[in-house]
């Protein structure tokens, strides 16, 4: 390297460049040294490790959280299940191993081979599932012949177990394999193909809480792939346990009472919106979904005309019928259309326009005021109240009580029902509202549609004087070791502005429905228990004007009327509010009221009650 004249700093530059070369040299020497250490000094060790490829990463599945009822009764559990798995690389030659496995375990070779074929293209050290949920005979056979089955091992997994078969099936939900669309959503970043997630019900709504977090571990395996020791482990975090607001015994009672019919029962605590019962009949057994449900069973469920997969408590919409008179009465009093002394005469019919609207009692009720009209469910009285109010004011009060919108309960597919207004009808059908239609609305027929849950929310608000709570399914969430607990607060949605006198009148009337001879639910009174309620009989006849796309409407059969009963008890400081519907039960008083009565009775006087729940006997299609 000759010396050039570069300016004042040529010597200076050269000096610094020499230092730079020195630094580079040192760095490379260090690297060479390390290389030497790894490859020459420790070479043998590493060579051995690489040849046996003995270090593997495994995942540890977390335990899914359990589901309990409000009293700590276990509803959903996990049970161990055993999957026969193979690591192809350790099982060579693979066909020979599979043949042996088929012979020892009694599994068809074809099934095993098909599974292996499906796995082509995956790296050979990744485990392949051969036979899921193996029974003890298979397990015993494999364990005994382990030496002869290299690469084959038993993967212990947990599977979901719904302890009470079809009880609360819609509410609890079930698990299924995550599909491609769900994997894409950011909501589930930790998920992989083949994982199980909640598909409906609480299993879905609280999946993130129940799921827990996967753990991982580094293991050393021997030449045939069996784990020799665990080098390091990051524990899986078990999912949290969920305590529902549901009272399971009450729930089972409701399901037993509904057993032979299609219908629903909802019970709420009017003090905080806790859901005590959410029953829908007929039901299904979620255990059938734990291992893959067979096609026939699925078809049977889906084609059953009583629709067992539908949660009628929140998905089915029905006309509220006479139970709606509560709304009409409240609206009438609050809007000043009537007062407590207003009377109308019911001769059994009412002329309006060029039509005669009948009252259900052919001979008529005679002179009625709001109290007696509600107690005896006089149609004519309410036709006139409705006429004075008009459809929009009725709609306003209905919506105040939560009708026409979802309650927001933590479950999917909640229907919102329908509360018509003049604007709605014009937009929907192009025909303006006819005054005569208001009369039907006033008694809960016509376009009106409500869900049993909405009914329960309404009657709960009537019971506690006008406070509407959001229905709550979860009482608390606790960590698996029980150390941490989060208690969920009640959610106050609305305080409906009602005059104290209105509340008094309505509550008195509802008490009369059950406890006075002329009340429509006289048969369902209980000595000592102050039950208040209202019957309803919903017409099922299809209407020409209803041009909605609602599938539920089309499914309303042209048979007997549906039976409603909404109730709460005790009259003073109520603790439970109930809504029951029995499809095609005909009269609310004979079909629905006795169920509500039994539920209330059981809830308020648990000892010495008449109806005890029959364990596990519930309606619908079951398997196990």
């Amino acid at each position, binding site marked *: *390297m000759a010396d050039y004249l570069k300016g004042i700093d040529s010597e200076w530059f050269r000096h610094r460049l020499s230092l730079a070369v020195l630094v*580079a040299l040192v760095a*490379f020497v260090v690297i060479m040294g*390390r*290389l030497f250490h790894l*490859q020459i000094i420790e*070479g043998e060790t*590493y060579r051995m490790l690489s*040849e046996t490829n003995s270090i593997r990463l495994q995942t540890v599945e977390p335990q899914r959280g359990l589901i309990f009822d409000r009293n700590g009764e276990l509803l959903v559990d996990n049970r161990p299940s055993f999957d026969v798995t193979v690591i192809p690389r350790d099982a060579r030659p693979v066909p020979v191993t599979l043949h042996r496995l088929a012979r020892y375990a009694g599994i068809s070779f074809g099934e095993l081979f098909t599974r292996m074929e499906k796995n082509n*293209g995956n790296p050979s050290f990744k485990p392949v599932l051969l036979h899921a949920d193996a029974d003890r005979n298979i397990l015993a056979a494999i364990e005994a012949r382990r030496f002869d089955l290299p690469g084959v091992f038993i993967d212990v997994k947990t599977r979901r177990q719904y302890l009470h078969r079809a009880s609360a099936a819609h509410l609890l939900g079930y698990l299924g394999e995550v599909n491609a669309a769900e994997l894409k959503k950011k909501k589930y970043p930790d998920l992989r193909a083949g994982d199980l997630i909640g598909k409906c019900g609480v299993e879905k709504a609280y999946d993130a809480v129940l799921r827990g977090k996967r753990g991982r571990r580094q293991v050393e395996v021997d030449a045939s792939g069996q784990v020799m020791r665990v080098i390091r482990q990051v524990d899986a975090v078990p999912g949290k346990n969920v305590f529902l607001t549901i009272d399971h015994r009450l729930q089972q009672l409701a399901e037993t009472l509904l057993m032979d019919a299609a219908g629903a029962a909802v019970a709420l605590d009017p003090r905080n919106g806790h859901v005590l019962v959410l029953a829908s009949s007929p039901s299904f057994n979620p255990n059938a979904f734990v291992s893959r449900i067979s096609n026939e069973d699925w078809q049977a469920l889906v084609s059953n005309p009583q629709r067992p997969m539908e949660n009628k408590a929140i998905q089915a919409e029905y006309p509220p019928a006479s139970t709606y008179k509560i709304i009409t009465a409240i609206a009438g009093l609050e809007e000043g259309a009537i007062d407590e002394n207003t009377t109308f005469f019911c001769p059994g019919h009412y002329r309006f326009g060029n039509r005669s609207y009948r009252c259900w009692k052919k001979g008529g009720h005679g002179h009625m005021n709001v109290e007696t009209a509600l107690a005896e469910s006089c149609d004519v009285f309410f036709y006139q109240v409705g006429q004075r109010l008009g459809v929009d004011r009725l709609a306003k009060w209905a919506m105040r009580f939560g009708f026409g919108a979802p309650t927001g309960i933590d479950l999917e597919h909640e229907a919102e029902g329908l509360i018509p207004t003049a604007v709605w009808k014009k937009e929907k059908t192009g025909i303006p509202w006819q005054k005569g239609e208001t009369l039907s609305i006033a008694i809960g027929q016509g376009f009106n549609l409500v869900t049993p849950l909405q009914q329960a929310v309404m009657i709960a608000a009537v019971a506690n004087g006008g406070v509407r709570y959001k229905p709550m399914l979860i009482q608390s969430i606790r960590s698996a070791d029980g150390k941490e607990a989060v208690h969920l607060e009640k959610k106050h949605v609305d305080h409906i502005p009602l005059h104290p006198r209105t509340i008094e009148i309505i509550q008195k009337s509802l008490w009369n429905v059950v406890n006075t001879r002329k009340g429509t639910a006289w048969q369902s009174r209980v000595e000592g228990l102050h039950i208040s309620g209202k019957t309803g009989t919903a017409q099922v006849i299809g209407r020409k004007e209803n041009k909605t796309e609602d599938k539920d409407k089309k499914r309303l059969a042209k048979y007997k009327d549906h039976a409603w009963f909404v109730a709460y008890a005790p009259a003073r400081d109520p603790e439970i509010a109930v809504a029951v519907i029995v499809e095609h039960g005909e009269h609310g008083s004979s079909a629905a009221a006795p169920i509500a009565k039994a539920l209330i009775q059981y809830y308020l006087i648990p000892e010495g009650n008449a109806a005890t729940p029959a364990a596990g006997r519930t309606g619908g299609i079951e398997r196990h």
Partner: protein
Amino acid sequence: MFDRRLIENFNWGLLGLICFIGGFGLTVLYSSDTAGEAAARILFSKQLIWFGAGSVLMIACFLFNYKHLDRWAHFIYGACIVLLICVPLFGKYVGGARRWLALGPVSVQPSELAKLAVIIILSRYYSRVINAEGLTFRNLIPPMLYTLVPFVLILRQPDLGTAMLILIIAGMMTIFVKIERRTLLGIFSFGALSVPVVWYFLKGYQKQRILTFLDPDRDPLGTGYHIIQSKIAIGSGMMFGKGYLKGTQNALSFLPEQHTDFIFSVLAEEWGFIGASVMILLFFLLVVRGLHVAYGCREPFGTVLAVGLSAMLFSQIVINIAMVMGLMPVVGVPLPLVSYGGSSVASVMAAAGILLNISMRRFMVE
């Protein structure tokens, strides 16, 4: 246009080194691309294309007089910053990070370009300010700003590796042009104090990587696992290696990121101590060649520029190899001409082109 002298003074040695290293790198990449049952060799083919494009780029980089870079330094730097700002706005997500901009059929990583831009603008600045006693603190303020802006932008992509690389290269260049003693002391103190600030900006997994390096037991199942597998691969090569295409660690996909960060492990496993040493020697010669170009240059800009480019090559080589051997924390720094990656190949080839440029014009006085 072409002065005879340019061809006479062409630095064939440097070009030869580039070719050798590139060729060796492609060979190793070919092997690493067979891992997994699907031997599609897509990556290898793509890398060939990158080499082709890179060669064109390299040639383009010595066709003009490098002194133009001095004139255009600010423009190049500015364009780079703009591109870096575009990344979080228009960039595409790949594996949880946004480092790429799609420009038509090609995706570019502005961070790779940023390395060159920073080197060029610092060279320009230092060549004017350089003096025998060393730079004062005031002298250092502009370079710090020049460096900090892309550093922060890249850090937030998040790309810890390239961000740190820029810092290191800038640091090396600065130390090379000498800092005044008391300022140097001040910088050290400041550096120590700024560690918590930088720490704050790091993403969770980046912090994990540094902590894991300092204490490998912290994450035995994530990064720690990668390093273990890498060391097994390297160590198992022993003296002569397992033979070409016979690396069991890589054939079973035990080595993650084997085409990019951990490609040296594949090399060491298959070619053994002999092969790996040869590679390291070639790299060393490359760096020395680069410094030699600096030595031969007669004016300050070219000298500092050559030093900066050599520092870039040096840093990437040393950091990558040290990382796969467990001597440094895992950061995504590609091994020049060996790791798969179009942008990396492009930036290294461009750097080589500029070095050739400086070298072949060393006798031309402006």
